[in-house]
């Protein structure tokens, strides 16, 4: 029985771990200590009001569209640029300086500039998501192709593998765990970029709703919307987590939190 309980706990540890927070939330909410923390019932009501007042599903749809276009652009460009920097000295000399600058820079600071360039619309949000995702994917692709074990390269050379065979059979598989980790982090960054972009543009998507609910102190609604964003982010990241387990179970060296 005890063993059984432990199994349940391990299996649903994430949900079980949330229980104390939910209880605390409700207690603070009931105490009326701060307007920022409403009762859970108000959060549920908030979801309903948000759904009634606007076409919530369509807005989420718009957000997801921006997210995916920006994310996929970021993944494609990040992978190509990162791999090129990692593999090719000339590419490193051309792009390296920008990547190093952008790694340390707060991308958020560029968002007003992006809006000035691309206008108050979906294009700016897509570009913001792209920038947030692209950096992380670039860095991880670069690290990935450089992580290849030098003795494996020596082995391939000794057995007469061509450059192309070495790349496809040794370098790319070595890079895969890093690349997937980059894709996962990139997904989290993509959500950050999405919400930030939408908040600043303020008229579209779920970020628009968030800033609207927040600025008019509809806390139940705000928490419901935050919940939706967090849930979606976790969902997509866990899809990539599934890919990691499927394809890189041989690797224990890379972080897959």
């Amino acid at each position: 029985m005890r063993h059984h309980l432990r199994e349940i706990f391990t299996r649903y540890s994430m949900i079980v771990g949330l229980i104390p927070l939910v209880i605390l939330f409700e207690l603070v909410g009931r105490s009326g200590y701060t307007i920022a923390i409403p009762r859970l019932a108000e959060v549920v009501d908030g979801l309903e009001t948000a759904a009634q007042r606007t076409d919530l599903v369509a807005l989420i749809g718009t957000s997801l569209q921006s997210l995916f276009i920006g994310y996929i652009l970021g993944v494609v460009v990040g992978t190509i640029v990162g791999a090129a920097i990692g593999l090719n000295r000339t590419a490193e000399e051309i792009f390296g300086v920008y990547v190093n600058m952008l790694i340390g820079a707060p991308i958020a600071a560029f968002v007003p500039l992006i809006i000035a360039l691309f206008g108050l619309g979906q294009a700016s949000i897509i570009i913001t998501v792209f920038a947030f995702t692209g950096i992380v994917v670039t860095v991880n692709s670069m690290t990935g192709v450089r992580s290849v074990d030098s003795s494996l390269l020596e082995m391939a050379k000794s057995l007469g593998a061509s450059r192309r065979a070495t790349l496809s059979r040794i370098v790319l598989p070595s890079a895969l765990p890093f690349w997937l980790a980059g894709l996962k982090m990139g997904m989290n960054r993509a959500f950050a970029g999405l919400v930030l972009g939408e908040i600043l543009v303020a008229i579209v998507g779920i970020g628009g709703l968030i800033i609207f609910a927040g600025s008019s102190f509809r806390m139940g609604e705000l928490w419901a919307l935050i919940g939706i964003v967090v849930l979606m982010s976790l969902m997509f990241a866990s899809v990539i987590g599934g890919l990691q387990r499927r394809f890189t179970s041989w690797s224990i060296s890379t972080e897959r939190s």
Partner: protein
Amino acid sequence: MIEVVDVSKVYGPTPEEQVVALQGVSLSIKQGEFVSLIGASGCGKTTLLKILDGLIRPSQGRVEIDGNLVTGPGPDRAVVFQDFALMPWANVIENVAFGLSVRGVPKRERMDISAEHIAQVGLVGFETKNPGQLSGGMQQRVGLARALAVKPQILLMDEPFGSLDAQTRHLMQEDLLGMLEEENLTVVFVTHDMDEAVYLSDRVAIMSPRPGRVVEVLDVDLPESGSAEGRRSPEFLELTNYIWEKLRDAVRQQEEMSA
């Protein structure tokens, strides 16, 4: 026939920072011979092995195999690496077949050849396991099977059992001779283990460090060579003792010179 002629290797960007890894090494190895290169770390034995494979170019001198100058790796040679150099994402049979596959051997054929060599090294039943699921000894068996699968004439082994525990190493040494029995291979075997060198080899080249050079080449001519009994014979012990004295002198001289 391998001819190493006056090979030197110097590392380092500028003359002041240069390290002489090998200096004036000459050695000839006959077809079918098992020769060990033994010496303390820094004596250039691994560098010499990699020069034989063509992975490293010598700064001076040359290596010829059957009269042909070595300019790079070739199909007549295969290396067994100290750290196994197995692809962690690929299973045993894919690892063994790697050399065949990059050489364009058709899938069916390379699977058959690989299966044969997996059996030869005693890994039947482990074909679909990944390296991470195998012990160190078994991983090196995979490395050996991969090298044998490309049908080399010369097997170059770089401290292949150096990272294994003493018992496994002992077992691998005994099994290696059995596995190579029908191969008629020339073997160059890098080691720092005197017992291992004498047990396995026909000849032992003793090397000394900084600059790396061959100080003596010793014939191992023991009555029960390569058997467990021979390993306890007085002649065997005498030979390992002699090598130890040589190595000790070389290391001592080196230390006195640098002091």
